[in-house]
């Protein structure tokens, strides 16, 4: 019997909302959206946690410029706080090494993190999801029972095909979907809206491709001034 599975609900009980930022594909802005959302909510005075569940290519720490902090041990592990965000990631244990993990190991690591992390009271826990419709998304749905999904897409047909699959499985499993954000828009078009019409999920916004973003990664002052983050600040009311 795995005792860890029986304590996860308790670890999450003082978190008002659990929001997973996903989309199935890599490189579409999931980590950026999750980080920007956590930053924005924190600036608004909410108690926010950010959990990077991407073990193979964790990115939130690069985006936020997280360096030199480490969880504290106290009846579990307490995520260190950066810019008012309680931040948890495998990077504290894996550093910048590759994580060659198979499914069962990913699942076990997720269970361990959820069982030992003491988040305390939070208004929002933002979960940065890895790509794929495998272990991480299934474990997130299984273990974080109140989770809601915020879906990121781009105009690319390749991305949209995967996003549709994610939406289908979330619908089938009756997981709440907050809405869809179209990211990296290159031209104004109703293509994404039309393609996702059948799923009847709120289309929250379209964010233009932001050329200044890459240079701002890791620098919170620069990042906060980007059009991308300003856009997230404008649409946060539709999410919170």
């Amino acid at each position, binding site marked *: 019997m*795995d005792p860890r599975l029986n304590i996860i609900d308790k670890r999450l009980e003082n978190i008002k909302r659990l929001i997973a930022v996903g989309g199935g594909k890599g490189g579409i802005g999931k980590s950026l959206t999750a980080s920007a959302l956590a930053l924005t909510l924190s600036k608004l005075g909410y108690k926010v946690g950010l959990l990077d569940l991407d073990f193979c290519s964790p990115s939130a720490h690069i985006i936020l410029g997280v360096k030199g902090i480490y969880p504290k041990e106290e009846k579990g592990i307490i995520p260190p706080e950066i810019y008012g965000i309680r931040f948890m990631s495998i990077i504290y244990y894996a550093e910048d090494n590759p994580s060659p993990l198979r499914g069962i190991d990913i699942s076990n*690591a997720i269970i361990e993190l959820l069982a030992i992390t003491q988040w305390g009271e939070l208004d929002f826990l933002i979960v940065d999801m890895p790509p794929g419709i495998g272990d991480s998304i299934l474990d997130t749905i299984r273990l974080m029972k109140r989770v809601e999904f915020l879906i990121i897409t781009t105009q690319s047909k390749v991305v949209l095909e995967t996003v549709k699959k994610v939406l289908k499985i979330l619908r089938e499993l009756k997981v709440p979907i907050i809405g869809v954000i179209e990211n990296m828009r290159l031209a104004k078009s109703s293509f994404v809206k039309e393609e996702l019409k059948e799923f009847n999920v709120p289309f929250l916004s379209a964010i233009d491709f932001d050329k200044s973003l890459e240079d701002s990664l890791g620098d919170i002052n620069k990042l906060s001034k980007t059009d991308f983050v300003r856009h997230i600040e404008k649409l946060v009311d539709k999410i919170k």
Partner: protein
Amino acid sequence: MHEWALAEAVVSTAIKVSKKEKFKKITKIKIKIGELQQIDIDTFEFLLKEIIGNHTLIDKAELKIEKEEGVLKCNVCAHKWNFKEVIEKLSEEYSEAIHFIPEVAHIYTRCPKCGSPDFKIVEGRGVLIETIEGIR
């Protein structure tokens, strides 16, 4: 001490099981601690006793805690080895990382025969409950 969180998980599980089994009292819990997690048995027992002291359902339970050897098997060359063989060569920092998340063994250790990180943790990963006994 992060072991407290795992000890609390053991107690929560025992209470959950006892409710399902309609136990009036939990009399014995048998626990295995996998070698990869590197938890000191005495420390874990101390933490468990501290937590069960708050629950009348379980406060008199006998605790039997055993260490389970860490057995690893390579998915590439099928070589089997014991975690003991590799832990001694690891730095304190890396073995501590494995203590928190045993899966990071795939990051810091390799198959001693072929050098692959693609191996299975066959036994001895972490904390497991073997049996919970009680009276109805």
